């Protein structure tokens, strides 16, 4: 049997398709992308090495600054709110018996739906003539221009989009936390009640430490997701008004496939990649501690 499982030919045969795909569609393109980011490259001229020129443009690009600001806002907002709301919902749902599955499935539903479609749907809900503003008008309040307003450091449309993103994806964090909480041994809670522990205290001293590894996982998923964020913004505001709601992903799309500046877009891509790697490393370092026996 050992001989059979060590058969080199078979191993190569089994690994080859996945390995080749991965190398040619993911690994080599990434290396190319990094190389392009140092090149002067657009749709008409072939790639020509130009050193740090793209990165210098990056520093002076006003839209990029807005995009970076918005992306970082998204990152922080989604990490914090998803953690709080996800944990809160998971704690509520694990505390009830009747209807747990129903509520869980309802809250998770938008996660599987197309965010392109949901973005359009919310675009209508926050549009001036339909949805929320009609309700507000019936109550005698003049609603703001949800997706057009441009005042403030983080403008109103960004908050609206961030709210929709939370609405859509909080189910995922909730689900992960629920799975982890229901994996905790009941006897731990029973012991704590006998020792006179309140529900809140047992949540603080038993649940929270035990789900810490999952917090790291869910948070890094959120973080990468929020950096990659594209569909909702593209369909709700298309980066407008006046590029004020641009994020890194939409900016990359604009530069790469509207203006065909491949080299410059690659530089934005590299920035995105570096951010992703730093953020995951950071979260895993800070949040993930030792694993407890459950």
């Amino acid at each position, binding site marked *: 049997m050992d001989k059979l499982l060590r058969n080199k030919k078979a191993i190569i045969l089994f690994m080859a*398709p*996945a390995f080749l795909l991965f190398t040619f569609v993911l690994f080599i393109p990434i290396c190319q992308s990094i190389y392009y980011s140092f090149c002067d490259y657009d749709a008409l001229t072939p790639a020509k090495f130009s050193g740090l020129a793209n990165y210098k443009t990056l520093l002076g690009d006003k839209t990029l600054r807005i995009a970076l600001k918005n992306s970082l806002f998204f990152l922080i907002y989604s990490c914090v709110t998803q953690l709080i709301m996800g944990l809160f919902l998971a704690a509520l749902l694990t505390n009830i018996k009747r209807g747990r599955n129903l509520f869980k499935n309802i809250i998770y539903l938008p996660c599987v739906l197309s965010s392109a479609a949901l973005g*359009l749907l919310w675009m209508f809900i926050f549009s001036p003539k339909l949805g929320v503003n009609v309700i507000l008008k019936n109550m005698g309040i003049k609603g703001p221009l949800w997706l057009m307003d441009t005042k403030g450091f983080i403008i109103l449309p960004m908050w609206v989009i961030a709210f929709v993103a939370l609405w859509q994806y909080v189910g995922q964090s909730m689900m992960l936390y629920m799975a982890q909480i229901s994996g905790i041994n009941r006897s731990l809670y029973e012991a704590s009640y006998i020792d006179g522990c309140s529900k809140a205290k047992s949540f603080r001293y038993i649940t929270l430490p035990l789900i810490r590894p999952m917090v790291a996982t869910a948070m890094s998923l959120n973080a990468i997701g929020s950096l990659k964020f594209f569909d909702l913004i*593209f369909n709700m505001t298309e980066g407008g008004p006046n590029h004020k709601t641009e994020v890194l992903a939409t900016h990359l799309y604009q530069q*790469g496939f509207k203006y065909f500046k491949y080299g410059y877009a690659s530089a934005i891509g590299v920035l995105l990649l570096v951010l992703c790697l730093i953020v995951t490393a950071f979260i895993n370092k800070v949040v993930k501690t030792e694993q407890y026996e459950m």
Partner: protein
Amino acid sequence: MRKFPVAKIFIYIFLILMAVLYLAPLLWVFSVSFKTNAEIFKTPFALPKAPTFDNFSFAWTAGKLGIATLNSFIVCVITLILSMIVGSMAAFAIARMRWKFSKLALTYFLTGMMIPVHCVMIPLFTRFAKIGLSNNLIGLVLPYLTFSLPVTIFIMVGFFESMPGELIESACIDGATISGIFFKVCLPLGKTGLFVTGLMTFIANWNELLLAMVFISDENKKTLPVSLSKFVGPYNTNYSQMFAAIIIAIIPTIIVYCAFSNQIVDGLTAGAVKG
């Protein structure tokens, strides 16, 4: 030690409010998609007076959502089948066969989870344009397949590793070949895992917008999210048709979700627990 029921009542009130927040937008778009354009602005929140299906048929044909649905279906099914085969083969070799670099290979695949698709878009786009894969559904299948592999391999490695080794041993003693062990012993046993990863792959690709938008410009080859984003927009003023289009785009996933919600949840948690 029992909690006061008042707390329970508050929990339920809160959860019901949440459920309304989640279902109301979907039900609203569902109801307005049956209205005429004039009715939408007159009574946006009432039930449709005379439900009409014209919006749907217009979106389906003139909005090209029919073709788009078919394209999405073709791309997703091909990707689904290939990712199950390719992914589980690699997972089998990593989990069950004995070679020096199996751990390294797993790490190689898992780094793919952290890499945003945006970073490979430009090189892939220029390369595919050269070899005739742009405007071609195969050009979509390849990246979709590749980006679905990390999760598939991760979950399937878990499944294969948890299988009892005696099964493989006894198959060896009975004189099975390596492909026999894989196809006749391990794959049937890993059916649940395959099903779960398949569902996740299908849903993720069904909803993918960015790559599809970049790689496909031919009207007749666009996938559903792309056609939807083009059809629904500031230049179309017929709201009822746009709402019908949104419904067309989300109904398939809602049906799949209702049928398999438990498996989807399993897949999600299985994919992340060890993360």
